């Protein structure tokens, strides 16, 4: 039986070397590319009719649009309009990445901490830049909420700063851990199906159920990542 962690291995498909840096096209990069192509085809081809009364495909594309547009509007407000394409891209990227990872023999790029941390850092650094760009030095006031007595400040400010800087860690770890754990569990139980022979029916049923659960988690984690991005951007723009 193959190790359940084997599925997370990065395999180089086309070796690329830029100076000292390894930029090889790997199985991870392949799935990322498929994600981009799939998202674009899904939305562009789905909308090619531009029908006044949408068909099934166009309805799905519009549903995605309105889902994220509503999320941005509710969590950030009118100012969030400029971040809509970014939030939308982030959601589609994570959602399709998670979903494609459930296809047998495929690869889940969101199960790698490097990738999730990279995305979380873009969100974190981006939100911080937005905060300073909007409020200037006043953005430091974010670490001392209004109406707090001065004598609590020495205690509260470090806590606020710590919680602010742990944001990218919690954001990336949540997605990475969910994907890794889910896929590992799927692999372990799939291994039991083979090992138990005829009695493998029971773990097989379990794996089917687990796959359904993983589909839900794939959506849920993309949703959580996206809504937290909205909340962080809202904090940066409106400071609580």
């Amino acid at each position: 039986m193959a190790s359940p962690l084997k599925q997370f291995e990065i395999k180089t498909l086309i070796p690329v070397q830029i100076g000292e840096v390894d930029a090889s096209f790997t199985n991870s990069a392949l799935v990322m590319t498929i994600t981009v192509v799939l998202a674009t085809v899904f939305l562009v081809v789905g909308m090619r009719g531009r029908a006044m009364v949408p068909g099934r495909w166009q309805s799905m594309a519009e549903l995605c649009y309105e889902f994220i547009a509503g999320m941005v509007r509710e969590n950030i407000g009118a100012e969030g309009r400029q971040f809509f394409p970014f939030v939308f891209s982030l959601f589609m990227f994570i959602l399709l990445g998670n979903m494609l990872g459930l296809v047998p023999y495929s690869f889940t790029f969101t199960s790698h901490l490097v990738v999730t941390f990279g995305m979380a850092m873009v969100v974190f650094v981006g939100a911080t830049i937005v905060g300073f760009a909007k409020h200037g030095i006043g953005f430091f006031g974010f670490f001392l909420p209004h109406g707090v007595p001065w004598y609590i400040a020495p205690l509260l400010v470090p806590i606020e700063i710590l919680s602010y800087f742990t944001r990218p860690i919690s954001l990336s770890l949540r997605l990475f851990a969910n994907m890794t754990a889910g896929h590992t569990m799927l692999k372990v139980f799939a291994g039991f199906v083979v090992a138990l022979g005829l009695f493998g029916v029971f773990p097989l049923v379990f794996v089917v159920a687990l796959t359904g659960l993983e589909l839900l988690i794939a959506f849920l984690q993309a949703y959580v990542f996206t809504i937290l991005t909205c909340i962080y951007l809202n904090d940066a723009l409106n400071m609580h």
Partner: protein
Amino acid sequence: MPQFDPTTVSPQLIWLAITFIILYVLMAKVALPRIGQVLERRQHRIEENLKKAETLKSEAEVAAAAYEEVLADARSKAHDVLRDVREAMTADAAERTAAVNTRLLDEIAAAESRIAEAKNSAMAEIRGVTAEVTRSAAQKLMGEAPDENTVNAAIDAVLAERG
């Protein structure tokens, strides 16, 4: 775990950046404006249709009011016409009744005059006959015919006496 293999960090991050930037550009420049455009157009169309429906409704209300007015007007006019006709008929009937009455009265009067005439002539004839009978009766009794004038005077006196 393969996730913590440091040699895989750079290719993943590089391809993450490349693919995500491409996705962002495709979404921001191609996919999202199209969807936004379609949704906006639909919203616009719905609002337009709602507005149109509202104007049509108010127009219909105006038309209904005009119809009601015309109906009431026609009803009152019909009432008037009916009343006029009834009055005219009543007048006509009265006139005809009066005409018939006068004709009947005329005819009655004519008949009465005819009756009186007949009575008079009958009376005159009776007088003549009486005079003749009286003279011949007197002749038989007296053997001599009395004077005609005397007989006539006597008959007149009797007739005047008897009424």
